[in-house]
């Protein structure tokens, strides 16, 4: 706690880059995960393969995945960003697939029968109905990403992981604790905030 109290500006600056990293990674991840999740919900035969593959990737230890990505793109912002995007696929796509797949079939039938176009059915009915479940996936992915993003301190000098890994190198437990506590607080805050959003979206 001493480091945290002595250098609030430094911790805050690193926390800001941490948040930035996680948010950008999740937005980009969602651009892939959303269509993949919709595909899984639409094609029951493809679904187990798709989610199975994403699930297999998800089980690769993050440090190992990161090591592979570093071999490929070098150090910096990019490897941790790519790792987060890849990791989040399973959690996000599973949420989208469960959400869209769970929408009341009668509402979808009615929407089509009344003359909504496919995109109006998707955005106006299916996504809206699936929103609470999809946001559950976003929440889990966010919390996990905040934790995994600490590895960014190891491979790229970004985020709160910088404190943790510098603390390890410099034998400064206070720095490690500061980085860990700040990351945990971020995760708890994100979880709480997203729970509120989820509740607001519940029908």
């Amino acid at each position, binding site marked *: 706690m001493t480091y945290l109290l002595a250098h609030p500006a430094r911790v805050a600056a690193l926390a800001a880059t941490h948040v930035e990293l996680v948010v950008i990674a999740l937005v980009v991840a969602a651009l892939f995960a959303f269509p993949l999740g919709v595909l899984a919900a639409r094609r029951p035969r493809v679904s187990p393969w798709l989610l199975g593959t994403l699930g297999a990737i998800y089980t690769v230890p993050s440090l190992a995945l990161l090591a592979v990505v570093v071999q490929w793109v070098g150090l910096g912002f990019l490897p941790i960003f790519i790792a987060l995007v890849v990791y989040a696929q399973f959690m996000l796509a599973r949420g989208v697939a469960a959400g869209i797949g769970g929408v*009341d079939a009668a*509402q979808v039938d009615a929407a089509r*029968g009344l003359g909504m176009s496919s995109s109006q059915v998707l955005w106006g009915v299916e996504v809206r109905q699936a929103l609470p479940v999809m946001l559950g996936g976003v929440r889990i992915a966010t919390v996990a990403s905040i934790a995994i993003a600490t590895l960014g301190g190891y491979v790229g000098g970004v985020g709160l992981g910088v404190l943790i890994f510098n603390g390890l190198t410099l034998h400064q437990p206070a720095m490690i604790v500061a980085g860990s506590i700040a990351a945990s607080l971020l995760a708890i805050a994100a979880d709480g905030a997203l729970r509120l959003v989820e509740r607001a979206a519940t029908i």
Partner: protein
Amino acid sequence: MTPASISFEGASVRYSGASRNAIENITLECEGGELVVLLGPSGCGKSTLLRTVNRLVPLDAGRVLLDGTDVTQLDAVELRRQIGYVIQAIGLFTHMTVAQNIAVVPRLLGWDGATSAARVDELLQLVGLDPTAYRDRSPNRLSGGEAQRIGVARAIAAKPRALLMDEPFGAVDSLVRTSLQRELIRIVRELRTTTLFVTHDVEEAFRLADRIVVMRLGRIEQTGTPEELLAKPATTYVRELVHAADEVYERYYLASRERLRGSPP
């Protein structure tokens, strides 16, 4: 809009993996303003036939004509906006209010807010619900009968050329069903909308139909007015289904029909 005629010409549908056609070479004419009931057991193809009209089910052979125009010549989405659609599961959008549900098709057609809102109130009154009490309610807070009244209001909101109803009153209890049937008769008479109505309930068919189409195994067994079916059943199946030549049933069905419809206008 003027009520449209609906014609099926040799319409056939086969679902992938099925051993026989869901509907087989169906030819049928429904005049503008007519209420035609498709009657038969589950699996007889009546819902499939209904859903070919708004192209929710594509035909494998034959044609469906709406006022003489092959429906495949029309844009499917535009076509559906001109045809009301009511289903047994109702399918009210639970993330919308009652008013928003009713206004779905008007909004899709680009009606302005004030016109839609006025239409919503008019329709709530038409289906016997107080606009002030129901307008802003969530569909989750409606009884089954109320929900289906909203379902009917939603289907006819934009004055469709035809109305498709797939076992619309199958999930409500018989008392509520009777009052819904009575109101449907009144509404259809008022709107003069060509209506295709699917049911497996013989009494319901007799009460509502201008004409009944009896279906079995994807084919039409007989088409006729309720009186014709009772007087001259074309097949054993029809005779047994409607209990033709059984005076008790005949009197019961015709009395039930008359009671519900009141004296003809």
